[in-house]
């Protein structure tokens, strides 16, 4: 790093921090509107049933109830991403236990809850399908009448000549993997507060990761124009992909507010979060891999079946990602995939950190270790041999402008081997092992002609402070901080002088939202371009005022000065005063809509579709108690290629957080159903990692300096989670010779793999 930066590359404290440590920051449930009502939602107890009759008369008569909503009160619209099969409330049948069926707005939550109990619904239960295998069987009941075979979407993609390449391999292996339901389980329950404004527009407060896309979907659901809706984001208490897209409660709350003529707020209870929030897409992945004797990985094939749940949200896109992205991590010569997104009568599945890449990497990175052990090769050496490199054009047409994969693998491997613990303890009762997995991901991505960029709006105030408007949500990951740092660095002012404005679709510039690990890369870039624009205006004004050519001026720490002669200067604040308060009339504003220079993926999903691809390797040391099968995570070495770390402390925070979620995904977390009934109804049964479960972590930042990303930066949010589960599976195998291919890696599974004779046998 030769260039000296004054704000970026520094661990600047996060914007919004003081409000959070003092309790002043306002999350959705801290907000109130005058005359606000509280909403509760009645949810179907049946997984699949016809609705015969709904009688709300007793509920409507309860004092304090101000509005009751059923499907009859809703526009008959369809919404929900590319396979739009969601309705606000169901008219004919319910398709999953937990589906919204009716809603109440009342003076208090307690009254609303009591009113729910007074609603009488007659159901006719139908046969229900809980597993894609069941749904795919001939003669299975159809969950959506217009979707034969219960298939929501199919992908069939081949690159190169797969069969021919497979035939040229020295070794071909086949293995099957399965991944399970987990939940983003952010700490702040999701919700919305809506009111209809005097000018008949709808105002919605909600912690969406993507406010403009949310507005568009809400408009579709309510049959309104998007610009008649304003979405405002309060402080958001975590999201991880679970708050990108609207839920049914968004239009429900709006319609309740309309009916009641008063603002309405709805917050999910934690139990509702477990029941009705959209889990990670479960997948069954059959992998075929072909190797040469020297460890070259020639080709990979996958057959994927994913569980969509009852309606289609992000599962289709998640499955597409699962289908192709892992092909680009290594220099394969050919690949083939067939994927089917299958309906079941369960809570619709959707996106969660990794968005399909998490599931696919579990399969592939486990598979590589399996194959290497069978051939007798070192899995880390094989990864290095086949790793994608900068300058590569991958099987799916990705142009790898920056790639630090090999460096990540080597550094993670070296770090985990350093300070390694003894392989055994307590006369072999405790066995330890090491495993490594790597990953690739995107920083945003473009399908077809879709926008894949971001917008930034900046304006200086007369006191020299810069106000920045962006439309990407800050859920705590530091979006506003990174954008502020880039703006401050680019203009030449202290980061304290940059203020990020609240998010509102009325005032924020159009943005797609915080997902796909895109914000630093595209929103940061838009901010850089906007900052360059206002800097240019400042310099033009200073040129006029100081009578020195703009190219001979510089701005640092809020001062505009002549290069080499700093006494000739003026402050940025002075320049702003002149621009805004005097007849000089310089607006000192910028609006940039930025779209990265990528092709986009065509209708066969081929094309350079992200402005930056990211890489990482995580190595894990585990110990297994061979008497009980329990796994403990001891140490993690995580090496991440982030292009350039705008805020190293923020990047580390993402890595540690991703490791905690990844550890949970691999070992502890599981959304469990038994005969269609949810058993994990609270946090006591859904085990996220606590402080006392965390391993020791070494985080290593690799900076490959992406040519497109602002100052070389690319994303890290999702990458931080992706390699953990396969690294753990590989480490467990190293420790005790047991390969768990279906998540989560529980003590019980390890135990019976170690002692198959104990399964059903005598003690």
């Amino acid at each position: 790093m030769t260039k000296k930066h004054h704000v970026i590359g520094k661990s600047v404290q996060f914007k919004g921090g003081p409000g959070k440590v003092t309790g002043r920051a306002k999350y959705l449930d801290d907000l109130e509107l005058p005359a606000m009502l509280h909403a509760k939602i009645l949810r179907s107890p049946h997984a699949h049933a016809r609705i015969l009759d709904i009688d709300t008369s007793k509920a409507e008569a309860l004092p304090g109830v101000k509005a009751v909503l059923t499907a009859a009160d809703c526009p008959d619209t369809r919404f929900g991403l590319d396979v739009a099969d969601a309705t606000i409330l169901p008219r004919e049948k319910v398709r999953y236990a937990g589906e919204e069926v009716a809603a109440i707005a009342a003076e208090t939550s307690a009254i609303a809850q009591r009113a729910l109990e007074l609603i009488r619904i007659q159901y006719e239960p139908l046969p229900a399908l809980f597993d894609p295998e069941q749904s795919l069987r001939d003669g299975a009941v159809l969950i959506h009448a217009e979707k034969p075979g219960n298939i929501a979407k199919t992908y069939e993609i081949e690159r190169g000549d797969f069969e021919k390449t497979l035939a040229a391999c020295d070794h071909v292996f086949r293995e099957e993997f399965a991944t399970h339901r987990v939940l983003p389980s952010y700490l702040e329950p999701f919700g919305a507060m809506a009111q209809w404004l005097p000018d008949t527009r709808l105002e919605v407060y909600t912690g969406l990761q993507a406010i403009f896309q949310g507005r568009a979907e809400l408009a579709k659901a309510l049959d309104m124009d998007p610009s008649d809706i304003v979405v405002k984001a309060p402080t958001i208490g975590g999201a991880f992909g679970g708050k990108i897209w609207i839920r049914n409660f968004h239009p429900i709350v709006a319609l309740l507010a309309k009916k009641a003529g008063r603002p309405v707020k709805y917050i999910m209870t934690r139990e509702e979060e477990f029941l009705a929030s959209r889990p990670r897409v479960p997948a069954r992945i059959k992998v075929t891999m072909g190797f040469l004797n020297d460890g070259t990985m020639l080709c990979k094939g996958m057959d994927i079946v994913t569980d969509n749940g009852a309606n289609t949200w992000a599962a289709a896109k998640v499955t597409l990602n699962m289908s192709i992205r892992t092909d680009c991590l290594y220099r394969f010569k050919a690949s083939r995939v067939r994927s089917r997104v299958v309906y079941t009568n369960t809570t619709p599945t959707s996106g969660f950190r990794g968005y399909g890449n998490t599931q696919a990497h579990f399969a592939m990175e486990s598979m590589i270790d399996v194959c290497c052990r069978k051939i007798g090769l070192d899995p880390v050496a094989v990864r290095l041999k086949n790793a994608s490199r900068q300058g590569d054009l991958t099987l799916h047409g990705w142009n790898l402008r920056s790639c630090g994969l090999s460096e990540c693998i080597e550094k993670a491997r070296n770090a985990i081997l350093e300070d390694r613990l003894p392989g055994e303890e307590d006369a072999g009762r405790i066995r330890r092992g090491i495993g490594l997995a790597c990953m690739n991901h995107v920083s945003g991505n473009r399908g077809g002609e879709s926008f894949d960029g971001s917008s930034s709006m900046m304006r200086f105030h007369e006191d020299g402070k810069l106000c920045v408007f962006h439309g990407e949500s800050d859920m705590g990951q530091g979006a506003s901080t990174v954008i502020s740092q880039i703006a401050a660095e680019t203009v030449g002012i202290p980061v304290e002088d940059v203020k990020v404005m609240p998010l509102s679709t009325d005032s924020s510039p159009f943005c797609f939202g915080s997902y796909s690990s895109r914000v630093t890369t595209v929103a940061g870039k838009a901010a850089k371009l906007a900052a360059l624009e206002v800097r240019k205006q400042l310099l033009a004004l200073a040129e006029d005022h100081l009578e020195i050519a703009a190219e001979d001026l510089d701005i640092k720490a809020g001062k505009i000065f002549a290069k080499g002669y700093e006494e000739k200067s003026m402050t940025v604040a002075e320049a702003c005063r002149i621009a805004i308060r005097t007849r000089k009339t310089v607006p000192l504003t910028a609006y940039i809509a930025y779209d990265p220079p990528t092709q986009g993926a065509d209708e066969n999903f081929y094309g350079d579709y992200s402005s930056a691809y990211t890489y990482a390797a995580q190595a894990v040391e585990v110990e297994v108690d061979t008497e009980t099968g329990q796994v403990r995570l001891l140490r993690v070495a995580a090496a991440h290629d982030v292009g350039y770390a705008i805020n190293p402390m923020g990047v580390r925070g993402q890595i540690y957080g991703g490791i905690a979620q990844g550890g949970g995904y691999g070992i502890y977390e599981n959304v469990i159903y038994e005969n269609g009934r949810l058993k994990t109804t609270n946090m006591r049964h859904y085990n996220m990692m606590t402080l006392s479960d965390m391993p020791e972590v070494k985080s290593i930042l690799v900076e490959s300096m992406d040519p497109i990303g602002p100052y070389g930066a690319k994303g890290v949010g999702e990458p931080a989670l992706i390699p953990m589960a396969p690294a753990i599976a590989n480490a467990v195998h190293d420790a005790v010779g047991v390969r768990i291919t279906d998540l989560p890696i529980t003590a019980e599974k390890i135990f019976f793999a170690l002692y198959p004779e104990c399964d059903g046998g005598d003690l």
Partner: protein
Amino acid sequence: MLSRTSLLNIKFVLNGELTHVEVAPEETLLEVLRSKLKITGVKKGCGEGECGSCTILLDGKPVASCLLPAAKVANRQILTIEGLARGQDLHPIQEAFLEAGAVQCGFCTPGMILSAKALLDQCPAPSQDEIRQALSGNICRCTGYVQIQEAVQLAGRKISTS
């Protein structure tokens, strides 16, 4: 003895100030703090005592306010996050959390800071294990805890040198 009516008038010291409020027998402290007293720094993450977001200090000890009947705090001392800073001056623990990057979405932060305060009040230079035990009832979904642990150690050093 408290009077026998549906609503009880209780008084307790909240963040250093004597506070009076009417509570119903089954109302939790969390509900009373948030709805009646507008102390919204105390968060509801699960309502079942399983996440730690609602942690407050009762006579200096961390408790889950979502499981505590409000009436129980009569004549006792409560500290919420709002009571930590002195005007504009942040408490060293708050400063440490900001400096160490221990705050992302911030939802767990009030409870986490209070649990840390209770620990540091007893144990000014806690070991890693002591921090783990004291904070293991506060779930954080964002940070992965490493920077939180660093913040608590930093806070201990700040408090000792001040």
